């Protein structure tokens, strides 16, 4: 489908919507402007923390995902679902949850203090990494799991009946799965962390943890220096795309061959591996779920304080999430190939601030930007979700082409028939996962609403910020809990929908 008119239109709109705003901001600014000396320090820190965050997240995800693939236990499905939650939490809420656990007055230090041990200090580069791993480990785990689940049961059965040693099993199955998934996961996480700002600053403990996105915010909001903002935005874009090109070069896309879709339990997780696997699962579960528990606890009381406007905001968020998901999935179906993915990476690498300002300038001559608050948010959230959706779908879509290419050619399946008979049914699982992720992200993302805000059309994340800004910390925690529940609900619904084929 790579060259169908559908794909070309989808690709062009995507390019126009991501690169267009940057160009518009540049034109408005009258060109690029020079960087301040501090910007280079920010750039160095940004790349360094993003790189470390990506490597750590993926490296830790490998044993956790493998443990989850090898072991079956009651509550496994629920755990896998819940573990996805940190990724979809709004930043400010997640940070509060992390601080409640790892902060100076947090749970960990309470325990350490109780035992008479020295306390830990979360603030610093390690705090930034902790937060980024918290957000992105679940994503990496899920990507790897999806990769492993794509291995046909027949392969495993053959491997078992051949009596392959663990080393051989690693060589023919686990190794290739990791090689297929890891580079893309690394890039996506690297790119998300490139635009990190509030998390990095808060947990980084101060100006040492200044990122490029902070400099863009400062340039836009305090100095009104669009030129500098656009220059920094372009540097960010170049970094993200560079990483993307590199990853696509090293990613393998050969398929695992066809199977009859029988689920098969792996037998190589027996013996002492049960214990090491169990340890990995328990550690990851604790690390991800305890801060979530803190968010829930903080929010329970606040739920009582929620008033009508928060409920209305929740309605807006659900509508935005629905629209974003539909739009994003249409794009994803059209662009599930390598070039499409690279293009989509541009969407999250562009600073949301530059994107928002650019769209504002683009729309202004035609419509009143205020009336466009929710549609623009939906559109931007669809854009932001696309790289994740594609990263989840593309590896298997490419493998599908290899595996079913001959069948397709011999039957002469074209466009719609191929999509309906093979593509969608075969990719149900990643499609469901991707749709769930996009819906949840769209629910929780502030997007670019700052320039487009409308008093009557707040989304739930914006409402959380508004409540906090008016001393309503408890109500904000309640609203955050509602947001978590809605995001998780949307995620579970769509993800389950995709997995029904499994039964």
């Amino acid at each position: 489908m790579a060259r169908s008119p559908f794909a070309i239109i989808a690709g062009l709109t995507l390019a126009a919507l991501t690169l267009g705003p940057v160009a518009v901001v540049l034109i408005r600014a009258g060109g690029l402007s020079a960087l301040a000396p501090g910007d280079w320090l920010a750039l160095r820190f940004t790349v360094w923390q993003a790189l470390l965050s990506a490597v750590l997240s993926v490296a830790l995800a490998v044993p956790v995902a493998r443990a989850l693939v090898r072991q079956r236990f009651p509550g496994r499905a629920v755990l896998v679902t819940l573990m996805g939650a940190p990724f979809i939490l709004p930043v400010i809420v997640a940070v509060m949850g992390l601080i409640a656990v790892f902060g100076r007055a947090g749970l960990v230090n309470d325990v350490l203090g109780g035992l008479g041990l020295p306390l830990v200090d979360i603030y610093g580069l390690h705090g930034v990494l902790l937060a980024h791993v918290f957000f992105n480990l679940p994503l990496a785990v899920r990507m790897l799991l999806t990769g492993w689940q794509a291995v046909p049961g027949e392969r495993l059965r053959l491997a078992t009946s051949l009596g392959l040693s663990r080393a051989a099993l690693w060589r023919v199955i686990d190794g290739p799965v990791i090689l297929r998934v890891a580079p893309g996961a690394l890039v996506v996480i690297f790119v998300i962390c490139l635009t990190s700002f509030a998390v990095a600053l808060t947990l980084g403990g101060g100006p040492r943890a200044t990122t490029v996105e902070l400099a863009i915010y400062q340039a836009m909001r305090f100095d009104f220096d669009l030129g500098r903002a656009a220059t920094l935005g372009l540097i960010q874009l170049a970094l993200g795309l560079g990483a993307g090109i590199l990853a696509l070069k090293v990613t393998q896309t050969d398929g695992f061959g066809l199977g009859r879709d029988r689920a098969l339990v792996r037998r190589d997780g027996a013996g002492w591996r049960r214990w090491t696997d169990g340890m990995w699962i328990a550690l990851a579960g604790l690390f991800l779920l305890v801060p979530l528990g803190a968010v829930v606890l903080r929010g329970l009381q606040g739920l009582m304080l929620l008033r009508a406007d928060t409920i209305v905001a929740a309605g807006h968020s659900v509508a935005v999430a629905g629209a974003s998901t539909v739009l994003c999935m249409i794009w994803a179906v059209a662009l599930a190939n390598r070039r499409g993915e690279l293009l989509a990476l541009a969407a999250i690498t562009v600073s949301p601030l530059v994107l928002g300002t650019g769209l504002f300038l683009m729309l202004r001559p035609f419509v009143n930007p205020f009336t466009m608050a929710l549609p623009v948010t939906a559109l931007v959230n669809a854009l932001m979700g696309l790289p994740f959706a594609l990263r989840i779908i593309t590896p298997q879509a490419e493998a599908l082409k290899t595996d079913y290419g001959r069948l397709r050619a011999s039957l002469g399946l074209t466009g719609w028939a191929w999509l309906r008979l093979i593509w969608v049914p075969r990719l149900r699982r990643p499609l469901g996962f991707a749709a769930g992720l996009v819906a949840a992200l769209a629910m929780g993302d502030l997007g670019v609403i700052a320039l487009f805000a409308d008093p009557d059309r707040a989304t739930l994340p914006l409402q959380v910020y508004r409540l906090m800004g008016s001393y309503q910390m408890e109500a904000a925690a309640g609203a955050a809990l509602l947001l978590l529940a809605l995001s998780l609900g949307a995620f579970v619904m769509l993800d389950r929908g995709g997995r029904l084929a499994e039964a």
Partner: protein
Amino acid sequence: MKTFTFAAGLLLATSAVAQENVLTVYAPDYFTSEWGPGPKIEELFEAQCECDLQFKPGELLPRLLLEGDRTEADVVIGLNTDVTKKARESGLFAEHGVDLSSLTLPIDWTDATFLPFNYGHTAFVYDTTKMEAPASFDALLNADDDLRLVIQDPRTSVSGLALVLWVQAVYGDQAQAAWEKLAPKIVTVTKGWSESYGMFTDGEADMVLSYTTSPAYHIIAEGDETKKAAIFPEGHYFMVELAAKVAATDQPELAQDFMDFILGEDFQSMIATGNWSIPAALDQSAWPEGFQKLDLPESVLFYNETEAAALRDEAIEAWRAALSQ
């Protein structure tokens, strides 16, 4: 398709609103929430103007500068002194024409363009049940390094910028040395006030950079008198919020009515609990009871916009250098 229908529906819904006698007011985002002052301002003003006041919340000056003369705004409310210079130079604003003699600010205010509506001071807020307040800024600098302080970034927040100017005003050339003493006590720096204050109420920090008026919220809304602002004899930095009339307004009379309304009694007696700040033109005896209980500084420090613009980079750099070590 769904998106399209959705978007179209929203567009129709909005364009149905009558366009006559609408006063468009740009305000900061927190202003228009149910808990902010926006709804009360709207109610009070609409009761006297026979018009429709519409708030458009969001980034104030960045948006205005992007829109230029074609802006929809008639009035802007919620500006801070750190942007007035830029705002003035843009030429987008007209003189407010309001008699300033009723102002009750602790400093002399004669600006013909930017009209103050409420004020406060930077201050470190703490919990009296957990610690004793340092008696002065010096005492804070020399306090034990166990003291946990959370502040805001001067590059991304108005209150953070006020803090570095405060330190600059108190310590002058020695500002960086002062920051170096403060640095070990600073748990972290947040992007905005909300995150910091959340960390304080969660017990992650003992003291938070906030305003002298913050305790009033706890007294009035929560009946809690344990939160106090530490008052320093060196003085506190003055923070004022301003409104201004847009020169290109197509509702000049309504806009003028609104400017006059701001210093009137209705607005002034509401704004204390509406925005948790001290009214700009209301005698102390008329403040709500909770505000009368506030500890307020005797001495007030303030740089006008020209001085602040000249000092800003230096003050931020002293902060950055000291906290980056």
